[in-house]
């Protein structure tokens, strides 16, 4: 009998399974059939039809071969144009952009190209669950930085300064943030830049939710701040902005020396991102701006509605300005995040994700997704209101 513990790498064995996933298995095993969920982190819209049509056309024309390793030239050029048009960023499509299998591959690829054994990777938390495990697999040491409700879950200059050591290699900058909905405005990024300017620390700026910010000012990338472009890898993708999650298509942008190495790794590991998806994405880049606006407007009114309802229930809830999540504090119920979520499934059949799944600093909070129809959201919140009323201290 083979002993799998001795076969499997010590790194992968040290990685904990996703906390979101674990909670879900719990909900699924409850045997309840009428569970209504506000827990999924992908758009509820189907991909706009003209984008689907473009992909179908490409299949009909027999365009079923590998693309160049970096991605189709047309797509790289249109990504470059899009970033100039919307964020004033200039990246050379020939050397500074790589089309990847979702933003996820781009994150993995960037970490593996930057991290040497023992290098520290700073990860603001609460945040998406992939940065820690991918850092570990790259041989790095994840160093969480706690962001707090009192700072509207932004990364502060002070917290960053305290976390930096001689071994710090990468700062992950996950804004707009999943799960908190926090954003970093230009002034906040300036403060971060101030600290990084004279260091060798690289920034992995995960801007996958960049099109989903609310309020008057659009998203600002840290690469726009003086002196930051040379040290920033921007991660972006089509999943959230264009409701294209299942197409698995994203991109990385950054300085040529880094992108050259990332392209090498991508070439050996993946070869090229899906061809059909790239044809759909070209159409999205060319004429998808109105789709973004339409979906953002819809998310925005759900966001306002949910925050209003949660506050009316007596929950402390910071106003999220990005992504499609709200992150209310549930400490007033006296329950832990996990207890709250488990009991709400059992008693009112509503599923949300415990904040603790996004790092220990998420304890005392829950993540509510509003990538659901208003009708669905209203029903779930009505049930949640009953649950809170019963359990409020």
């Amino acid at each position, binding site marked *: 009998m083979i002993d799998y513990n001795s076969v499997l790498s010590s790194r992968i064995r040290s990685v904990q399974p996703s906390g979101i*996933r674990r909670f879900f298995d719990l909900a699924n095993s409850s045997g309840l059939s009428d569970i209504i*969920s506000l*827990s999924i982190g992908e758009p*509820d819209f189907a991909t706009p039809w003209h984008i689907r049509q473009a992909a179908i056309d490409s299949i009909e024309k027999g365009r079923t071969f590998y693309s160049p390793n970096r991605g189709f030239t047309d797509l790289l050029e249109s990504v470059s144009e899009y970033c100039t048009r919307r964020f004033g960023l200039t990246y050379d499509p020939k050397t500074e952009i790589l089309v990847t299998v979702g933003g996820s591959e781009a994150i993995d690829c960037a970490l593996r190209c930057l991290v040497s054994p023992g290098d520290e990777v700073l990860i603001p938390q609460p945040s*998406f669950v992939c940065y820690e495990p991918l850092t570990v697999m790259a041989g790095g040491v994840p160093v969480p930085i706690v962001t707090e409700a009192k700072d509207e879950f932004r990364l502060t200059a002070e917290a960053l300064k305290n976390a930096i050591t001689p071994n710090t290699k990468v700062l992950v900058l996950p804004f707009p943030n999943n799960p908190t909905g926090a954003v970093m405005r230009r002034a906040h990024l300036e403060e971060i830049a101030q600290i990084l300017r004279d260091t060798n620390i690289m920034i992995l700026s995960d801007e996958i939710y960049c099109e989903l910010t609310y309020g008057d000012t659009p998203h600002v990338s840290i690469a726009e701040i003086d002196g930051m472009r040379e040290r920033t890898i921007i991660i972006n993708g089509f999943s959230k902005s264009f409701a294209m999650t299942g197409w698995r298509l994203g991109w990385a942008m950054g300085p040529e020396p880094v992108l050259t190495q990332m392209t090498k790794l991508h070439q050996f590991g993946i070869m090229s991102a899906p061809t059909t998806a790239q044809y759909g994405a070209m159409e999205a880049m060319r004429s998808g701006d109105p789709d973004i606006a339409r979906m953002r407007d819809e998310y925005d*009114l759900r966001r*306002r*509605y949910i925050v209003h309802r949660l506050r009316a229930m007596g929950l402390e809830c910071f106003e999220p300005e990005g992504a499609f999540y709200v992150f209310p504090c549930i400490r007033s119920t006296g329950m832990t995040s996990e207890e709250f979520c488990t009991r709400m499934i059992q008693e009112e059949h509503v599923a949300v994700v415990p904040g603790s799944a996004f790092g220990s600093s998420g304890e005392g909070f829950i993540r509510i997704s509003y990538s659901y129809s*208003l*009708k669905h959201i209203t029903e779930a919140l009505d049930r949640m209101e009953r649950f809170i009323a019963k359990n409020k201290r």
Partner: protein
Amino acid sequence: MQEKILKLLEENARLTNRELSVMLGISESAAASAVDALEKSGVISGYRAIVNWEQVDKARVNAWIELKVSPKRDTGFDEVAQRIMEFDEVVSVYLMSGSYDLLVEINGYSLQDVAMFVAKQLSTIDGVLSTSTSFLLKKYKDKGTVLGGEEESDKRSMVL
């Protein structure tokens, strides 16, 4: 703002002014006066339930009649349209471009009912040259709402 209010109410006319104000980030009184203005100006001409009568009465039918009409010297198509509008059975009347002139929607209790109405009431109107009746078999999408069968379940899966 006006357009956003209209879109929300078109989807769900039962939203309160309070709910509208929260969703749009305006004051409740601003929402109230905007809705009021839309009602007064006739942009919103009413609120009604979308009823699937077929579920109440299986025999009930919905028909679309294309009418060719010879227009009157002074009143054009208006006079004929006016007469047709008077019947309770008639749900809508439209003047169309193309191969016919008036499109008339009729609700009836049976196929026979509608056929007799067309033969006796519509085709006999002075100026009506011909009629062509089509019965509605199934609604796939109505007023922007996709209809049909059970609500589609959420196809999304928890991936992380």
